[in-house]
């Protein structure tokens, strides 16, 4: 029903990056995402909030078709990136994912050196012309992810030998290094201390200048700090989507309100 209004808004706003229409996601027979309609704007940070297991990650993974890798997972409905259906036959998921980068919920560094972990994306996309440029990209990405100081002396040691938070930042650096147009971040700061968190939030803010960022977070404060728009998911439904200030100060849906005030889980 509110499908109509959302579509209209999409037509008005030229800077819509992602538009999802009636998206359903099934794991086998169970439906994890129900009828989700959402517009994600360009040059904006959108936060997904909601209780654990409500489908945030699932929906996020739809946006760059990472769900393709799960056998039992099935996506219905349309998801448009810049007006183009990303589930179209013609679309190459590889190109899509180059545009839409992702940081996963569980840090998953490659069993390679720290340097190679970060250099991996630029190398496969041919973003640099020579070793010096590559070094530069690696350094700047690690700096952006607030990891450079900790690892600059051991770029050759394996990425799997880092602490949990360091691994998470490594994954952020890895995603940033490919300079995607959209960055999907699934709880990027969950294992980070406040200072590192602040640095990553700074990075997100910086990225917003050119790109669109979608961030899943469990911290209302963080959502309030970094995002311009917030989407609240509950039991697979997109309950409410709106300006962050509005959502946090004046939620329309009673469920949103009770979640924000800490009453439902």
């Amino acid at each position, binding site marked *: 029903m509110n499908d109509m209004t959302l579509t209209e808004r999409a037509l008005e706003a030229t800077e819509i990056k992602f538009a999802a229409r009636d998206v359903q996601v099934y794991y086998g027979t169970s439906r994890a995402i129900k009828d989700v309609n959402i517009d994600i704007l360009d040059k904006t940070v959108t936060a997904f909030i909601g209780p654990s297991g409500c489908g945030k990650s699932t929906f996020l993974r739809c946006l760059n078709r990472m769900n393709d890798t799960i056998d039992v997972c099935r996506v219905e409905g349309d998801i448009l990136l810049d007006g*183009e259906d990303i589930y179209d036959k013609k679309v190459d998921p590889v190109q899509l994912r180059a545009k839409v980068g992702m940081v996963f919920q569980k840090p998953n560094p490659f069993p390679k050196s720290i340097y190679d972990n970060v250099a991996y994306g630029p190398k496969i996309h041919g973003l640099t012309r020579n070793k010096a440029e590559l070094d530069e990209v690696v350094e700047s990405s690690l700096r952006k992810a607030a990891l450079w100081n900790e690892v600059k002396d051991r770029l050759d040691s394996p990425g799997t030998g880092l602490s949990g938070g360091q691994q998470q930042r490594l994954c952020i650096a890895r995603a940033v290094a490919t300079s995607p147009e959209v960055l999907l971040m699934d709880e990027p700061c969950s294992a980070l201390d406040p200072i590192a968190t602040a640095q990553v939030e700074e990075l997100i803010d910086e990225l917003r200048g050119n790109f669109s960022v979608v961030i899943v977070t469990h911290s209302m404060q963080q959502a309030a700090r970094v995002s311009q728009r917030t989407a609240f998911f509950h039991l697979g439904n997109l309950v409410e989507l709106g300006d962050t200030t509005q959502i946090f100060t004046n939620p329309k849906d009673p469920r949103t309100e009770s979640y924000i005030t800490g009453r439902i889980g």
Partner: protein
Amino acid sequence: MTAESTNSGTSLYKTDARTKRRNASEARFRIYGMAAVGFGVLALIVLLTSVLGTGLGAFRQTFLTMPVALDAATLDKKGNRDPAEMAKVTTIGYQKILEKALIAELTEQKLIPEGMSAKDVGGLISKEAPAQLRNKVLANPELVGQTITFRALANGRIDGYFKGRVTMESAALDSNVSPAQLELADKMRAANLLGLSFNWGFIFDPDASELRPEAAGLGVAILGSLYMMIIVLVLSLPLGVAASIYLEEFAPTNRWTDLIEVNIANLAAVPSIVFGILGLAVFINFANMPQSSPLVGGLVLTLMTLPTIIIATRAALKAVPPSIKDAALGVGASKTQTVFHHVLPLAMPGILTGTIIGLAQALGETAPLLLIGMVAFVRDYPGAPPEGFLDPASALPVQVYNFTQRADPAFIERASGAIIVLLVFLLTMNILAIILRRRFERRW
């Protein structure tokens, strides 16, 4: 959602040059993979068709059917039907009876061509037939004096004629068969005295000498291989897995374990015949186990298979992610429990693969058996286990090897037939492992 909204970057629908290149290389890579699988499967198909093409014939055999008068005067001179007395008549005597019976039958049907000697006519019957008849009579002395309908194997060349191996032209050159005999066979076939039918004997009968390829079967070899595989499976799988678990999960990394590791890798490279030398020295000469026995064969093959299983198992154990082990240790599982409850099930596909490949190799191996006396002509079936493990027996690959060495061309088909049986044996052996492996296969 208009199409012109593609302000940033390129359209997803159009692949850019670099992506095209990458996709092309992706496609190439995929094609290489497909080609590799295709190559393997193709090789298999080629090999199988050639084996099946030549080997299927062995499962059908030409038989003669005729009435045979069991003349009491020749078979039981004393007339007391005492098998011990009757045993004095050898197969040569029975051969004459069969020859006479055939000639009598053919004369009655007016099939014998002009000028064909009795010996030539008798040549149509396999040399195995007299022995069969003799056994039949000795088992049931009351048959003497009666006329029975007897189904006898036809001579291998005659059989070859119906399978296309022997032609009129080749028979003209062949010193063992004449075109006249083939013509006679043709007539007999028309008269329903002779025909091809399924040959159970090939699967259940023992080997036969070079004079009677038509009678050669695989019974003893199948039993021998079965016994050996039981021993190999029972010993090599637990030993191999146990050794791998120790080396991969428990052993400290030091010189001693390095030594064991190199050792195992090196054992895999030891030619199989050297294992035969070892078996001869250790099991037969030192431990005084009997020659030609499936027990010794099984032990030798076990030692030969172990490295394969160990290498595969270790690789599989190594691939289990440490986080799973951490999780188990973290709830207070002991190392042993961790290994047996979590690591081993996850490593199962690799272990089973190693077992499949190791057993396949063990099943098809001849060289080590050469030295422990199993590459032999054995006609008596080994007994039931466990004593049967000590009786002389042959093995399927040995039978293949022997068949390929024999002069009579009829053995070529039997060699391929034996290979078919061996492969069926292998498949039955593997099916359980393959099903199990599919159950354990999963990603985490």
